[in-house]
């Protein structure tokens, strides 16, 4: 499932660096971190729409419902990545 989510996001945001993790190790609640320069032109909600809508099309609603998403421009990622263990 993690690979499938990663592929959908990478197809939707071709230049993105994508990390998908299963923080609770329960195979249901996933966390996706998506870093892309293309986000610089988008508001936060537009960044999330660019990722969430393709996922909404690809997966059943409850799978997408349980996905935690964080989006970053490269600059924001540099500042925040330690928080995520990178």
């Amino acid at each position, binding site marked *: 499932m993690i690979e499938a989510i990663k592929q959908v996001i990478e197809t939707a945001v071709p230049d993105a660096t994508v990390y998908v993790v299963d923080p609770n190790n329960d195979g249901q609640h996933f966390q996706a971190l998506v870093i892309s320069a293309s986000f610089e032109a988008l508001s*936060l*909600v537009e960044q*999330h729409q660019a990722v969430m809508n393709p996922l909404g099309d690809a997966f059943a609603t409850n799978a*997408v419902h349980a996905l935690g*998403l964080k989006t970053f421009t490269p600059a924001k990622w540099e500042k925040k990545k330690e928080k995520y263990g990178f």
Partner: protein
Amino acid sequence: MDMETKLQEIDGDVKGNRAVLYMKGSKDFPMCGFSGQVVNILNHIGADYETRDVLQDPVLRQAIKVYGNWPTIPQLYIGGKLVGGCDIITELFNEGDLNELFE
């Protein structure tokens, strides 16, 4: 009620109210963790907002996803515009950027 009519109803609702949260359940009885988290955050900052329970209206539950171009519930609208779902509201709150949206 068909989808088209419901979309117009939503449009009027989000533009007719300062802040509207489409959620599962109500302020007092959120029926989903994500909806509950947004209610807790909005109550914590003392925001003034309306809620709509999508569990009471299956057409609304689908139409709001079409209207907002957003695949999940909850969805918060301020000034007629989608602010986001649970992740974005939580992030805006953590960054201290949420209060100003309600001024």
